[in-house]
């Protein structure tokens, strides 16, 4: 390799190391900070405003932490994923409107009740109903793993509804209600907040549901923290702080524009209302991206998407090249019999199972008790996935180099390793560059499932915006455009690289 190329390689490696280091350092794990996971699409309990975690849950946790004399760090995760990560100790507390149930209490510890709600129906004004009977033949829609989900299932089994649609977050649920005329089963306070944010919705309090008790959740063995939480909850009840928080949100009609009780100066931006086509377009843009600094979700998400994609690509290339070398060496010399078997199993399993399952397994099983930053874990997961594809690509590239090349090297006295490095791989790389370009493009797009382990990547970022605006199209379009732009840049870079190599000889 030329000196210039070595320098380029060095710079890339250094960048990757810095990125990895920054991620590790930024994961904050000191004892005096509680890691609290929430799914911030559950106003008025959990939502985000200008990048800050807001809502009744969040403020009560702040009040409790204050009483306990500790700091809090809020983190985003999917609602159903929090029920997994808290028992594993990936977070200390789950605060996302968890209703107490015997079933959940099997796997997590519940604090004392801090709020009570009841399941109601939210639907489009045009689809108003007066009684439960009218739900017969109607489609119910719920967020996965909520008590509304359980209730809807029961009702469906008894023949009280035609179907139950299960979605992963409330923004999707509300979208469904508005566009498909379905009936959402949801907690009463959340319902109020949704109706505040969208005047086409209304609450139909027709269900025979029981009162539900919300509690914070902890790992089963973390009774110490749970007891401290209960004590502090008692303290803030007595001091009146607790009631003030509830009153504050009620006074704001549970609107998603309400800032934190502890940061009331951080007022939400005013709504804008222009007329005409361009005016409407501007309003839409303003609402989705400017208001309350919502563009920050996109920037932050994009940052994570790019970090994961780059780290995973580097891991994938390294791993793939290694596996390909082991397998090719085995093909040529018969050495590394066991390693070859392992590599073969690796590529077979990884290529034969969905990347989504691999991500979940790596995060919740393999790194179950690890406190590594989830961005790093995701990078490893996607890197392991990509490595299997890269390995096959590299191997076919090596196989495509004529056998005579290796023989010429060997006949000159070079070892097969030397021949591989100086003669076979450089030619293989030219063969495989187009396929590697494709692999890096699909890798980038696959990172969009990182949200399932609680990472705010680009896709999750626009999801959060949707959760606040209940307007699906603009954020999705923008995310799509960003992915497309990156893909086009990648494709351009690879085609240039290809052309340069093709011109070379």
């Amino acid at each position, binding site marked *: 390799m030329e000196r210039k190329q070595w320098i380029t390689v060095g710079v890339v490696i250094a960048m990757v190391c810095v990125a990895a280091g920054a991620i590790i350092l930024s994961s904050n794990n000191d004892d005096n900070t509680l890691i609290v996971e929430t799914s911030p699409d559950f106003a008025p309990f959990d939502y985000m405003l200008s990048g800050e975690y807001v809502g009744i849950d969040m403020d009560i946790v702040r009040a409790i932490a204050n009483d306990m004399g500790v700091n809090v760090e809020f983190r985003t995760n999917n609602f159903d994923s929090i029920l997994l990560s808290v028992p594993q100790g990936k977070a200390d507390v789950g605060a996302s409107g968890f209703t107490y149930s015997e079933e959940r209490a099997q796997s997590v510890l519940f604090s004392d009740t801090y709020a009570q709600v009841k399941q109601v129906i939210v639907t489009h004004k045009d689809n108003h109903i007066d009684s439960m009977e009218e739900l017969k033949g109607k489609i119910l829609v719920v967020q996965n793993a909520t008590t509304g989900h359980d209730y809807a299932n029961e009702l469906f089994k008894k023949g009280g509804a035609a179907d139950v649609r299960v979605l992963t977050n409330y923004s999707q649920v509300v979208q469904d209600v508005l566009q498909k005329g379905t009936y959402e089963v949801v907690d009463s306070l959340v319902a109020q907040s949704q109706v505040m944010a969208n005047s086409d919705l209304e609450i139909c309090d027709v269900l025979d549901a029981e009162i539900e008790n919300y509690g914070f959740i902890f790992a089963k063995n973390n009774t110490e923290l749970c007891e401290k939480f209960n004590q502090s909850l008692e303290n803030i009840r007595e001091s009146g702080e607790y009631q003030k928080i509830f009153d504050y949100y009620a006074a704001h009609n549970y609107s998603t524009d309400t800032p934190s009780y502890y940061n009331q100066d951080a007022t939400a931006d005013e709504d804008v209302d222009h007329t005409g086509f361009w005016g409407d377009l501007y309003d839409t843009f303003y609402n989705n991206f400017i208001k309350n600094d919502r563009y920050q979700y996109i920037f932050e998400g994009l940052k994570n998407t790019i970090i994961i994609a780059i780290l995973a690509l580097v891991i994938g290339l390294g791993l793939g090249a290694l596996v390909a070398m082991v397998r090719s060496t085995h093909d040529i010399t018969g050495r590394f019999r066991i390693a070859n078997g392992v590599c073969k199993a690796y590529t077979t399993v990884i290529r034969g199972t969905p990347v989504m399952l691999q991500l979940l397994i790596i995060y919740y099983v393999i790194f179950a008790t690890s406190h590594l930053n989830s961005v790093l874990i995701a990078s490893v997961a996607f890197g392991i996935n990509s490595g299997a594809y890269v390995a096959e690509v590299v191997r076919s590239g090596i196989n495509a180099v004529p056998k005579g090349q290796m023989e010429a090297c060997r006949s000159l006295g070079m070892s097969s390793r030397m021949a591989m490095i100086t003669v076979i791989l450089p*030619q293989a790389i030219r063969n495989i560059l187009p396929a590697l370009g494709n692999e890096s493009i699909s890798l980038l797009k696959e990172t969009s499932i990182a949200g399932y382990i609680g990472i705010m990547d680009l896709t999750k970022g626009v999801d959060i915006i949707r959760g606040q605006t209940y307007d699906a199209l603009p954020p999705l379009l923008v995310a799509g455009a960003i992915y497309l732009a990156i893909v086009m840049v990648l494709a351009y870079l690879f085609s240039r690289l290809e052309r340069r190599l093709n011109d070379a000889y």
Partner: protein
Amino acid sequence: MPIEGKVLLRVRGLKKTFGDHEVLKGIDLDVHSGEVISVIGPSGCGKSTFLRSLNLLEKPTEGSVVFEGIEITSPDTDIDLLRRKIGMVFQSFNLFPHKTVRENIMLAPVTLKVMTEEEAAAKADELLGRIGLLSKADEYPSRLSGGQQQRVAIVRALAMNPDVMLFDEPTSALDPEMVGEVLSLIKTLAESGMTMIVVTHEMGFAREVSDRVLFINDGIIAEQNVPEELFGNPQNERLRDFLSKVL
């Protein structure tokens, strides 16, 4: 037959089987220093397999190959070290397409640390000068004609200063008008005293250059002799049959 030189390569009872197909059925041969041996025989008789067994590109099933006093098939032998002294030229040239002509020649001496970059470059230029291709030193092989490529492949092997050169049908892949330039280079090499074994279909060349010609048939050396005798007075019936077809 000039048998005066010391024995450089001694082959005894060499056998090679692919699956249940026995290609070589027991070959014995002494190659003396400075000797030029041509190997002829019908297609598929095992000429390449024989040649490739001499530097262990094929692993003999049985028998021994002793090069400069060292048994090459022994597990204790560092074959890479021996191969430096056994140059090989292939039918399909096998130049490295991603390296320039000069780099092709320099690669092995430099990566094996038998020469410095400067020494190897000087050696490459000297060899290229000898074959009249110095002007092509910075070209990639794809820009050269077949004959030029094969001549570069020959000097690439020479750059390691081998004690013996193995040629496997070095002109078979060439257009007829390029055969001459390659043969004349091999001839010059032979005249300079290089020990070599040449598998060839060029009977005229074999007759002119060799000290000895081997006729391989059915996995054994069916006949061997000085070229005048072998071509002028063949004893083996298969050899007569073979010569009548190729001459």
